[in-house]
C-alpha cells in the first residue's frame, strides 16, 4: 500500500520495530534473464559491508522462461539457514505476483516493476507496496533489447541500495572489479544502479525501517558455493584424473575443477597438461574410468548425484572388493528417480552407505558447508588411499550450488598426500612372493602395487572370489578370509575418520543428532529452543562408519531428535543399524519438500514433543 504522495505508509507491524541487519530479501524472477549477476552484486555488497549473508537460489529444471527465486538472508547473528519468512520481496515476475505477495511476512515490503502498475491488485494491508518502473526507466535509458532486460535487474539493486542503505561506494568498487577491462559495462551497470537508486530516493522515504548498517562480521570469511570449494579440495589433494557425466547439481564441480586445472596445471611453454578430465558416456563409464585410473595409481574422482550413484553401484562394489581407492562426490538432489533435480535433499545416505550388491559398506563423509567441502575433499583422497576403498563425500544441492559465507580456506604447505600402503619397485624386488590381499600389519589394510612398477607386483585384479594372493578361488575358507579382513579394515577406518562436531551444554539429557546442511537450522533451532527453556545438546556426524563419540553421545542422552532432510529418516535408520541406539530413544525430525530446512521446521516439532513430554 502506498500513500498518495508515493511514500510508504507506515503499516502496523512495520512501524513496530525498525530491524537492522536481520531480515530476508527474496527476488522473484524469470530464469534466463540474467538476474544471477544482479543478485550476486547485491549479496556481495552486503558481505563487503561486513554483514553476514547467505544466498539461496531456487530455480526450475529448465533453461529459460520459468519462475526462479533468490533468497538472501541478512543475519547480524550469523545464522546461515533459511529463516522461514520473507521480509522484502522484489517481484520481477508478474506470473508469480500473487504467490510472492502472499509469502511476505506481515509488516514486510513488496517491490515490483510498476512500469505496468498493479497497485490495485496487489492489495495487502499489512504489506507495503513499492512500485518502481524498472523496465520503463531502462527502456528509456538503454538501446539494446538484451541490455534492457539485464539492466532492469541491476536497477532493482540500485533501488534496494537506497531503500536499505547499501554503501554505494562498495557497489561501485564491485562493478569495477567485475568488469575490470570493460569500462563501458561498468558505466552501463552504474547507470542502471543510479536509475533505481534515484527513483527510490525521490519517491520513498529511505531507508526503510528494515535496513542495513555496516558491521565487521565478515572479515576472514569468503562467499563461496560448495561445488567450487570441493573442486579446490580435489585440486589440492592432487587428483589428476576426473571422469564425469553431467548431472545437476554436481556439474559445476567438474566445471570448477577443470578451470582450476587449466589455471594451475598447464605448462606455460609447452601447453602440456598435468591432468586428464574425461567426459564419460554415462555414469557407469565415469566410475569405471575412476576405478581404472585409481588402480593405475592416479588420484581420481567423479562428481555425481543420486541417479548417477544408482548407475555406479556395480562398480562401487567392485572397487570395495578389489580394494581400489576411488573418490565420489554425491551432490544430493530430490529423488526418487528424476525427482526434482533442482531441489535439495539428503536422500542418498542409505544408498551410498551400502551401495552395490553383496556385503558392502562404504566410508562416507558429510560436509556441512563449502569450507568443509574443501577440507573433506582432501580427506576423501587420503582416506581412500589409506584404506584402499571407495570414499563418498555427500553434499547436497543447497551446499553445492548456493552461496555460503564461510571462514576463509587455509592450506598447510607441509601437507603431502597420504598414498597409503603402496610398495615401491625396490620393496617389490625384495619380495618374490607378493600377497595383494594379506593382512600383513594386522590392521586389515593390505599392501598394494601399481602397474608398471615391478613384475613382482603383478596380480590380476578381480571382482570374483579371490585369495589373499589375489588369485581366483571358490574355496569357502579362502573367500571368507578376505571378506573378514575387509570388515577388519572397515573397523580400522572407523577410528580414523573425521570426528563428529559435538556441542554440549550443561547436563542436558535431550540431544539432537544431525547431518550436513541441516547444521545452520539446527544451531538456530537450539538457540530458539533455549529461549523457550529447552536446552539440547548437539552432535553432527561428519562421517560413516560412526565413531565411538557418536556411540557415547547416544549413550549419554535419554532422548535424541535426529534431524535430516529426507522422508524415511535415513540417518536415524543408519544409527539404529550401526549403533546401540534404541528405537524409543531416537525421534525423527524430517524435512523433505525440496527447500532447504529452516530453524522453524525443527523448533515446532521438537518444541511440541518436549512440551507433550512435560505434560505427560
Amino acid at each position, binding site marked *: 500500500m502506498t500513500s498518495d504522495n508515493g511514500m510508504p505508509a507506515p503499516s502496523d507491524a512495520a512501524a513496530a520495530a525498525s530491524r537492522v541487519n536481520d531480515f530476508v530479501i527474496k527476488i522473484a524472477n524469470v530464469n534466463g534473464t540474467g538476474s544471477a549477476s544482479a543478485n550476486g552484486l547485491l549479496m556481495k555488497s552486503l558481505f563487503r559491508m561486513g554483514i553476514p549473508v547467505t544466498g539461496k537460489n531456487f530455480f526450475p529444471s529448465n533453461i529459460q522462461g520459468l519462475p526462479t527465486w533468490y533468497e538472501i538472508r541478512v543475519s547480524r547473528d550469523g545464522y546461515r539457514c533459511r529463516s522461514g519468512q520473507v521480509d522484502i520481496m522484489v517481484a520481477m515476475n508478474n506470473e508469480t505476483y500473487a504467490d510472492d505477495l502472499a509469502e511476505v511476512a506481515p509488516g514486510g515490503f513488496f517491490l515490483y516493476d510498476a512500469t505496468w502498475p498493479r497497485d490495485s491488485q496487489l492489495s495487502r494491508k499489512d504489506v507495503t507496496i513499492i512500485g518502481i518502473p524498472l523496465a520503463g526507466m531502462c527502456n528509456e535509458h538503454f538501446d539494446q533489447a538484451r541490455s534492457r532486460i539485464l539492466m532492469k535487474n541491476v536497477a532493482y539493486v540500485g533501488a534496494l541500495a537506497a531503500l536499505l542503505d547499501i554503501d554505494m561506494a562498495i557497489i561501485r568498487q564491485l562493478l569495477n572489479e567485475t568488469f575490470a577491462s570493460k569500462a563501458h559495462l561498468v558505466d552501463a551497470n552504474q547507470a542502471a544502479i543510479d536509475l533505481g537508486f534515484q527513483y527510490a530516493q525521490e519517491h520513498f522515504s529511505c531507508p526503510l525501517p528494515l535496513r542495513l548498517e555496516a558491521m565487521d562480521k565478515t572479515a576472514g570469511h569468503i562467499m563461496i558455493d560448495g561445488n567450487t570449494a570441493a573442486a579446490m579440495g580435489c585440486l589440492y589433494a592432487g587428483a*589428476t584424473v576426473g571422469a564425469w557425466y553431467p548431472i545437476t547439481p554436481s556439474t559445476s564441480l567438474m566445471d570448477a575443477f577443470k578451470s582450476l586445472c587449466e589455471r594451475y596445471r598447464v605448462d606455460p611453454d609447452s601447453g602440456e597438461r598435468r*591432468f*586428464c578430465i574425461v567426459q564419460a558416456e554415462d555414469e557407469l563409464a565415469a566410475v569405471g574410468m575412476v576405478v*581404472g*585410473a585409481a588402480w*593405475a595409481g*592416479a588420484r581420481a574422482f567423479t562428481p555425481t548425484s543420486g541417479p548417477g550413484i544408482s548407475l555406479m553401484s556395480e562398480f562401487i562394489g567392485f572397487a570395495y572388493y578389489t580394494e581400489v581407492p576411488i573418490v565420489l562426490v554425491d551432490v544430493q538432489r530430490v529423488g526418487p528417480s528424476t525427482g526434482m533435480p533442482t531441489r535439495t535433499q539428503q536422500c542418498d545416505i542409505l544408498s551410498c552407505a551400502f551401495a552395490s550388491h553383496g556385503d558392502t559398506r562404504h566410508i562416507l563423509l558429510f560436509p556441512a558447508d563449502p569450507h568443509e567441502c574443501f577440507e573433506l575433499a582432501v580427506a576423501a583422497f587420503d582416506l581412500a588411499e589409506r584404506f584402499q576403498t571407495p570414499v563418498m563425500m555427500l553434499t547436497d544441492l543447497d551446499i553445492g550450488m548456493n552461496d555460503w559465507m564461510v571462514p576463509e580456506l587455509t592450506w598447510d604447505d607441509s601437507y603431502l598426500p597420504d598414498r597409503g600402503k603402496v610398495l615401491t619397485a625396490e620393496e617389490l624386488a625384495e619380495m618374490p612372493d607378493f600377497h595383494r590381499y594379506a593382512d600383513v600389519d594386522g590392521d586389515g589394510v593390505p599392501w598394494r602395487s601399481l*602397474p608398471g612398477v615391478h613384475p613382482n607386483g603383478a596380480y*590380476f585384479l578381480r571382482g570374483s572370489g579371490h585369495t589373499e594372493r589375489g588369485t581366483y578361488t571358490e574355496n569357502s575358507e579362502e573367500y571368507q578370509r578376505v571378506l573378514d579382513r575387509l570388515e577388519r579394515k572397515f573397523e580400522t577406518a572407523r577410528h580414523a575418520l573425521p570426528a563428529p562436531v559435538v556441542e554440549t551444554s550443561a547436563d542436558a539429557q535431550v540431544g539432537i543428532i544431525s547431518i550436513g546442511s541441516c547444521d545452520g537450522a539446527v544451531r538456530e533451532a537450539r538457540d530458539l529452543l533455549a529461549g523457550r527453556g529447552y536446552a539440547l545438546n548437539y552432535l553432527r556426524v561428519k562421517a560413516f562408519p560412526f565413531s565411538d563419540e557418536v556411540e557415547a553421545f547416544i549413550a549419554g542422552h535419554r532422548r535424541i531428535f535426529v534431524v535430516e532432510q529426507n522422508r524415511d529418516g535415513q540417518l536415524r535408520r543408519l544409527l539404529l543399524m550401526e549403533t546401540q541406539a534404541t528405537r524409543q530413544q531416537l525421534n525423527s525430525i524430517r524435512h523433505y519438500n525440496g527447500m532447504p530446512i529452516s530453524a522453524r521446521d525443527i523448533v515446532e516439532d521438537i518444541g511440541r514433543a518436549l512440551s507433550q513430554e512435560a505434560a505427560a
Partner: protein
Amino acid sequence: MSFIRKPTVTNSRLPKNSLGLTRRDYEGGMSTLCAGCGHDSITAALIQAAWELELVPHQVVKLSGIGCSSKTPAYFMSQAHGVNSVHGRMPSVATGAGAANRDLVCLGVSGDGDSLSIGFGQLAHAMRRNLNMAYVIENNGVYGLTKGQFSASADVGSRAKRGETNVQPPIDPVVTAIALGCTFVARSFSGDKQQLVPLLKAAIRHRGFALLDVLSPCVTFNDHEDSTKSYAYTRRYYHPAIHADFVPPAQDIKAAYDHGEAMPVELHDGSRIVLRKVDEGFDPSDRARTIGFLQDAAKRGEVVTGLMYIQPGQDDLHDVNHTVPGPLHSQPYDGLHPGAEGLRELQQRYR
C-alpha cells in the same frame, strides 16, 4: 578350486628375445576353459605376439570384462598387471588406466557378449576417443559362461545347441568399428595363428584404438552343425582378403617380402605393417568400399579376415588432451596446486 600354477620347467634351450625372456615367461596360469575352446588358441597367439614384440611384461596391462573369454588374461603374462572388471565395462577401466598412465601397453580381451550387448556403448566410446589400446573380441556367437544363449553376433539362421534358430540380424563388430571411425580394424580366426599373430602385433603397436575381432568357436555350446561360428563352418567359408605382416622398426621390408604386391603402412614408432592383397576388390584405406565389400561377403556367408581398415597417425586421447609425458601419478605434487599463498590469492574473488 584355487589358482593352478603351471610347473616351472626351466629349459635353457628355449629361444630368448632381446630382454632375455623365453616364450614361457609370457605365459600365465593354467587355463580352466573347455578343452578345444577357441579362446585358448588366442591366448597362445597373444603369448607369441608379446614375446616377439619383446613387451616388458610388467608394463603391460591386461583388462577384460566377464565371460569365458574375459577369464583368459589370467592365462598369459603372469608378470603383467591385469583387471578382470565387470561385465561389459572393461573399456572404461582401460580408459581410466590409460588416462592415468600413458606409458602402459594396454591390452583388452573381451567376448561378443561382453562387447556387443552389455558393453556396446562403452566399446563405441572407447573407439570414439581413440584410446590407445588393442582390443580383442573373442567372438563365438554365444554367451559361453552362461551356457550358450545367442549373443548379438549370432548370424541369422544359426541354430543353437538347444534347437532354437536365431532370427535377429547380427551386429558385426568390424563393420560397426569402421563406421564409428575406429583407426585399426581387423578380423581373424583362432585357428589361424599365422594370420593372428602378426595382426595382434600390429594391433598392439598401433597408436590409437585397434579392434581385433577373432572368431573363436565355443566347442561346448556353438560348434555343432547349423552353427555359423563352428570350426567347420569358419574353415569352410574362410576368406582371407588381405594378409598383414608386422615388421619391427629396424627391419627391412624387402627382407620380409620378396614377392607379391606389398603395401607397407608405417606406424608411429617406425614399425610397419605390410599388407598383401589376396582379394582384388579390397582396399584397407577406403572406409566406404571396405564396408561394402564386407557386407557383400556376409551375404555370401563368407568370413572375410585380415586387416580391414587402418588409419595411422590419428590423435589419441592424450594427444587431444595435451597430457604431459609419463604417468600422471608420478607428477610432482608441488606442480599440482598453488600452495597456501595461491589459495589466499585464489580466494580474492570470493570476497
